[in-house]
Each structure stands twice: as structure tokens, then as C-alpha cells.
């Protein structure tokens, strides 16, 4: 897929188009009304995505709050709360022109000051610090114009202004001086989006009803969205199969996906997760011998059969992934070394690295950790590694952690040899990729920082340049080179894209399949005529 700079940035000429959110043509007149019941295994802490990442908050959050822009399935920005926008020629500012009739759910108008407040809040409190780090100021020349000033060009800014990442929250509610992280309105928010909160029962259910005063005419089409939360995937499957629920947007276990695909009542899609860009991988502690040697890491790469993992262990529903950038992203470089299975090469590299096999055929011992609670993606792959790496003389001990905090503590304090992990790209490499490879992000005690302690000045330089390069082609070239270097250094062996799938009732039309899927406002979805 080729994207021009204009498409990516929506710059010169600005996209002064009427809001058009229906990205698909319809064979029939879309219906209005009805409720859609979604099921989820994830329980949100609260409903304010300005200070909380993740799909648990992101899905309801994107319905409750509107954002300046939205993205389609081709990574193209579209107007939302901002009816148009303009990126300055020097890339140092972006001006948003807001729609004039938008109101919060309490009837107060949505103004540029709320946009300023929201961006400042996200910059100060959201865990993805790189999203608005370059923002030096947000100016509000009038009620419907917000100009975002940048310390340096920020090519990911438009994506950062889209759903799931930039909810516009009301200053008159959240700016009352109380700590935003623990603000009571996080669980009972006054929103700006197509649905308003009817009821939030923590850990049980979220009920959203249509915002009849929404600024986009005739949207949303549904009257109600109900998200029921269950921590038992089997119960979820039965509920979807029985029609107690209408859709299951984040199915990951391969046997569940296969089972849902066999159901005639349901459509199953893997679209709608491109923005998340979730990658399952094996990380190496690059400062701990013998994994400090590139040849040892490469040998492990050659000894692992990525295709066996995706085709056999994950029943063919997961796609192989061989890069730090998700393969569905326009920045993916297909030339990155794949490390196809080659046990001879692996043995040769280990010999060359000075780790000859002993009389028992073994060379050295390593441990592998995994995130508890994700048996198929994490534990079973770790178990596979134990048997597979034995073939090249590496004695692997699979080390279990009783819970997430224990695993996170071990990894973030560098108490590991190798670990399975699952990390998300979040739409642009600046948000979700840089953090794992920048040497400046080696921060002890912080999970999902550069816990591999990987350090390469050339990589730092390339990522530094890519973070400020506004020209798409030049930026892609920087990421291409970055991928080739980390593909050679191999601080991480990338295994597969997490096989997220959505299953939904066939009578549902226009199920969200943009890059953000259900983490973008569900404005267009409707029930087909009975």
C-alpha cells in the first residue's frame, strides 16, 4: 500500500470535506435502532482513555468520547470533531478547525479550550508519553480553532489525534482541580461521542445509549451498545453462539476462532486490529552472557520454526511476524531477515560463538519466562522453545510466574534470560515501536520499556530522525534501515501477530473494520432488515 505525504498528513489544501464516516457502499438502506451486545474478557478500570491505554477502556471510551480525527481501513485520516485541519509547511504546527455544533453530553459546547485541555491532560498522564511529547503549546485563537505548536515536526501527530488515543474530555468536569488519575468522573464520564453512558457496573457491564444530540446527523445508527464482561472465554463463546451476545471483538485463542468460524450465524474477521499492531515475541536479555553475543541470538533465531508456531500451535489463525513493525503497517520492510528454520546454521553459529557442545550434547542453560494468563500465545510457545532449542544444545528451563506483577517485576528488573512478551505498535512506530529499541528508554523497573537493554547508536540515530521526518518516503526509508539493523542484531525474535478476530452476528452491517476497529466510534453499524 502506497500512501502519499498528503494522504498521511492531510496537509496542503486541508481536507475541507463534509464529514463522511461511511467508508463503505451499501446495497440496502441502513436501518436505525436496536441494541448490540458485545462481550469482552477485559474489565476496564474506568472509562477515560485520556489517562488509560488498552482496549478495555478504549472500546467504550471511543463511543463516549469523540476525537479530532478518525482513521479508515487504509490508514487515511478523516474529519471528526475537526471538520478540517492544516499542517504547517514547516511541520511545526497543526491547526484544527472544529465543527460548530458539537456538544458534550451535558449540553455544554465542545470548544477549542476542551481540545487544549484534553491534549495537555494526555501529554501529562497517558502512559504513551511520545504521543504529545513534542507539543509545546496549544493555542485557541477562537472557540472553534485549536493550533497545536510543536517543538519539532511530529509525523505521527494526526494518528495521535484519532480515536482511542485522543478523546476530547470536558474541562468543566475534569479540570476542577482534582487528580485526573483518580477523578470520580473517570467512571461516570460526561462525554462528547455518539453514545452516552447509561450504566457502568465495574467488572460486569457497561451500557451505552445513543446520544440524540450528536453533532453528526443520523448517527449513530444503533440505539444502544451493551458491553458485558466475563472472564470465562468458554461462557463468552456459548453466549455468542446462543445469540445472548451479538459480537465478540477480541477473540484470540485459535480453537475459539475456529469454532466461531464454523458457526453459520456469525461472520468472523481479522480486520480492525491493524492500529493495535500486537506482536507476540521472544525477547533476549542482551546484557547477560551468552545472550550478549549477537551470534547466539541469531542461532536461536535459526533454531525456532516460526511457521510451526503459527500453523501448528496456533492452528493457522495467527500470521507470522518477522519485524518490530507489524506487517500490515505501511512502514513494514519485507526485506528484513526472516531467520527461516536452519538447525545446521544455528549449530554452526553457536560453535563459532565459542559454545561447543559438551559430552551430553548440551552447550549452556537458559531460562524463558512468559506472561501468565495467555496459555496459547505465551506459555505453549515457551514450552515449544524448550524442546526446540534442545535440538541445538540449549537447555531451556521454562520459568512460570504466578501472576502478571511477578512477571513484570522480573523482566523490568532484568532478572531474566529470555522472555515471551506481547507488545503493541499502537498505530505509529513513534508510539509503540521506538520504546523497545531506544537506548534512552532503558529504564529499570518499568515494564515495556527497553527491558532487553538493547543499545545501538545507529538505531538511536535512525529512530531519532524518523520521529521528526515529515516526508513519508524518507521516513519509510529510515524505518527500512532500522528494521534491517535490528533484524541483524536481533535483540528480539518476532514470532507472530496476535490473532485478534471479531465474530459478529451476520445480520449486523458495517461492523467497524477501520484500523482501530471497535476502538473507534461505532457510528455506522446497523442491524439489517429482518
Amino acid at each position, binding site marked *: 500500500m502506497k500512501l502519499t505525504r498528503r494522504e498521511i498528513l492531510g496537509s496542503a489544501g486541508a481536507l475541507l470535506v463534509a464529514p463522511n464516516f461511511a467508508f463503505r457502499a451499501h446495497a440496502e438502506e441502513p436501518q436505525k435502532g436496536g441494541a448490540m451486545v458485545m462481550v469482552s474478557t477485559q*474489565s476496564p478500570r474506568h472509562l477515560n482513555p485520556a489517562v488509560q491505554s488498552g482496549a478495555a477502556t478504549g472500546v467504550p471510551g471511543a463511543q463516549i468520547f469523540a476525537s479530532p480525527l478518525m482513521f479508515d481501513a487504509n490508514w487515511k485520516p478523516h474529519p471528526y470533531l475537526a471538520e478540517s485541519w492544516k499542517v504547517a509547511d514547516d511541520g511545526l504546527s497543526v491547526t484544527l478547525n472544529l465543527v460548530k455544533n458539537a456538544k458534550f453530553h451535558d449540553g455544554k459546547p465542545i470548544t477549542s479550550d476542551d481540545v487544549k485541555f484534553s491534549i495537555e491532560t494526555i501529554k501529562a498522564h497517558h502512559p504513551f508519553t511520545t504521543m504529545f511529547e513534542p507539543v509545546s503549546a496549544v493555542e485557541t485563537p477562537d472557540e472553534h480553532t485549536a493550533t497545536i505548536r510543536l517543538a519539532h515536526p511530529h509525523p505521527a501527530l494526526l494518528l495521535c489525534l484519532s480515536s482511542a488515543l485522543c478523546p476530547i474530555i470536558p474541562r468543566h468536569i475534569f479540570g476542577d482541580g482534582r487528580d485526573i488519575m483518580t477523578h470520580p468522573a473517570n467512571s461516570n464520564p460526561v462525554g462528547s461521542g455518539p453514545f452516552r453512558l447509561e450504566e457502568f457496573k465495574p467488572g460486569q457491564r457497561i451500557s451505552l445509549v445513543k446520544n440524540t444530540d450528536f453533532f453528526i446527523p443520523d448517527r449513530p445508527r444503533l440505539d444502544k451498545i451493551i458491553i458485558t464482561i466475563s472472564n470465562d472465554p468458554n461462557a463468552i463463546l456459548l453466549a455468542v453462539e*446462543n445469540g445472548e451476545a451479538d459480537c465478540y471483538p477480541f477473540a484470540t485463542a485459535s480453537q475459539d476462532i475456529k469454532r466461531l468460524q464454523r458457526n453459520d450465524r456469525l461472520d468472523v474477521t481479522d480486520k480492525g486490529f491493524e492500529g493495535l499492531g500486537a506482536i507476540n515475541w521472544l525477547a533476549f536479555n542482551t546484557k547477560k552472557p551468552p545472550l550478549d553475543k549477537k551470534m547466539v541470538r541469531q542461532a536461536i533465531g535459526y533454531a525456532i520454526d516460526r511457521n510451526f508456531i503459527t500453523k501448528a500451535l496456533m492452528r493457522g489463525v495467527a500470521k507470522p511476524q518477522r519485524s518490530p513493525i507489524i506487517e500490515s503497517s505501511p512502514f513494514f520492510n519485507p526485506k528484513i531477515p526472516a531467520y527461516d528454520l536452519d538447525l545446521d546454521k544455528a549449530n554452526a553459529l553457536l560453535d563459532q560463538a565459542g559454545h561447543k557442545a559438551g559430552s551430553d550434547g548440551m552447550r549452556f542453560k537458559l531460562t524463558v519466562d512468559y506472561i501468565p494468563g495467555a496459555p496459547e500465545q505465551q506459555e505453549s510457545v515457551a514450552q515449544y522453545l524448550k524442546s526446540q532449542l534442545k535440538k541445538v544444545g540449549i537447555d531451556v528451563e521454562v520459568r512460570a510466574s504466578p501472576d502478571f506483577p511477578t512477571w513484570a517485576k522480573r523482566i523490568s528488573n532484568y532478572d531474566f534470560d529470555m522472555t515471551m512478551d506481547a507488545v503493541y505498535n499502537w498505530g505509529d512506530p513513534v508510539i509503540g515501536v521506538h520504546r523497545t529499541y531506544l537506548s534512552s528508554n532503558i529504564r529499570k523497573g*518499568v*515494564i515495556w520499556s527497553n527491558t532487553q537493554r538493547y543499545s545501538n547508536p545507529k538505531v538511536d540515530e535512525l529512530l531519532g530522525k524518523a520521529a521528526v521526518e515529515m516526508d513519508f518516503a524518507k521516513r519509510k526509508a529510515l524505518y527500512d534501515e532500522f528494521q534491517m539493523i535490528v533484524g541483524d542484531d536481533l535483540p528480539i525474535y518476532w514470532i507472530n501477530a496476535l490473532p485478534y478476530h471479531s465474530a459478529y452476528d451476520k445480520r449486523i452491517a458495517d461492523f467497524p473494520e477501520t484500523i482501530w476497529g471497535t476502538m473507534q466510534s461505532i457510528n455506522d453499524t446497523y442491524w439489517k432488515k429482518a
Partner: protein
Amino acid sequence: MGPTAYIARRLAYGVILLIGVLVLNFFLIHAAPGDPAETIAGAMGGATARMLADIRSAYGLDKPLLTQLAIYLGRVAHGDLGMSYYFNQPVIDLIAARVGPTILLVLAAQVIAITAGVAMGVFAARKPSGPLSAFVAVLSTVGYAAPVFWTGIMLVILFASIIPIFPVEGMTSARFSGGFVAHIGDVLYHLALPAFTLAIIFLAQYSRLSRASMIDVLGADYVRTARAKGLSETKVVFKHALRNAVLPIITVAGIQFGNLISGALLVESVFNWPGMGRLAFDSVLRRDYPTLLGILFFAALMVVVANLLTDLSYRFADPRIRTGGR
């Protein structure tokens, strides 16, 4: 001892017990590995070192353990169970929303277990070597031996998948809209499978116990006398024998209340029943100490109250106990 003094003494014991439960649980939970701040950071999608420090400070996790305990006990004394680390809502609100469903489930299971168990026991006792008696013996062995979560899953497969006549999970239908009476019906419809699952294990015990107790009582002199007086068999069994045979059931029902609550924890997880058990399960995984402590406190409170009520009902059912000591 008069009833007032008796109740007062039992209440005092109960309060001491509850304080002990609080302190012991506080230390036990904090002795477990795992940092709540890391859990919150994980749920947030990662956090910077500053954010981690802010989380620890916001929830008082940076203070020494004894200071945390003192603060906690002080709050509890004022009726404040603290804020949930995970949901950032008052624990008391989270529990208040869950305690009703748990009590409903536990009481429904208890009623099913006692009525069905006693009825089966009574009928089996009338012909100790008959087929019904053998059935009760088998049922009690199987019911007692089968783990409650397994029974639950089997019932879900049978009645929600193969013969889909009951809902899979939850307490109400997501799409439900209707009046109060219809709402009650919807709740009862959802309650059937979980309550029956939880009841099975206790039903087995009660049926066996009442069978044995009834056999014993039916052989007693006063039953023979009643029969000799020409009373109908129904009157003999239900008026004369059952009242005496039921005493051990009351005792066991009270003792079993704690087990019933712990069984409810599993059943709630299987059926996604929105009670305290499921919240407890989730809170353990999330290292949500205040919520977990609050639930354990409430569970202990329920057991203390249930035992007190059992003692009182025992005194009511058996005049010998009511007048004992005089």
C-alpha cells in the same frame, strides 16, 4: 443464661473474630508476592517510573506496612473500607453492588439443598433398603465427590448448549427491558443453574444426613406410640419424626454456611454471576488488596451472622435447648 446475654456474648465474640480476620488477612495478603502498582501499570499499558511512584503514593503503598495497617484499621472503624486500587472506587460501593447477588445465590442454594435434601432423605428413610434409598446414597456420593466448578461446567454444557433452555451466564439478560415482575422472572431464570450447581454438593450431604437421622427417629419409642395411637403415616413422619430429625440438619446448615460462601466463589466464576465471589477472584489476580480485604471481611461477617442465626433457630426448634440451664 438468658437470650439477651447469650446474644450479647456471641456478638462480642463475633467482633473479636472480625478484628482478627482483618489483621490476619492484611498480613497474609501483603506477604504474597506481587506489587499492586505494577498491576495497575500493566493495566494502563505500561507506566513511567514517575507514574509508578505516583500510583504508590496515591494508594499509600510507599508507607511502612504497620503504618498501612494502622491507617486501614482506623478507616474500617469509621466504616470506610478504602478505595479499590483497580477500579478506584470505594470498596464499600463495589461490595454493596455485589453482596445482594451473593446472598441471593447462597440463600437460593441453601433453600434448594435443605428442602430437596430433607425430602429425599425422609422418603429414603421410610424404606431404607428400597431403590430411592439407594438413589440417595449414590447421589450423595457423586454430589459430594464432584467438584462444584466441574458440575457447573457440565450443567452449562447440558442446559445452555446441548439443550439451550437456560442462559449461559450473568444475572440478567443484556437486552432485558420490562417491568419489575418480568425483571424478577429474568433473575430467577438466570439463577436456576448456578443455584442448583451450588446446591448439589450440600443437597447430597443433607439428604444423607436426614436419611440417617430419620431412620434413627422412626425407630424411636414415641414414633411407635404415635403409630399405635392410629395417626396417619404422613402425620407421624412429618409432625412427629421430622421435627426431631431436623435438628442435626440445622446444625450442619449453620456450620456449612462458610463452605457455601466459598463454593459460591467458584460458582460465580463459572456462571459469571455478579457477586462477591467473582470480585474476590478478580481482586486476587489484580492484587487489589483493599477490595479483597473488604470481601473477606464481609464474608466473615456473613458467617458470624449465619452462625448466630443458626444458634438462635436451634434454640427455637428444640425447647430443651431453649430452657436448658434453668
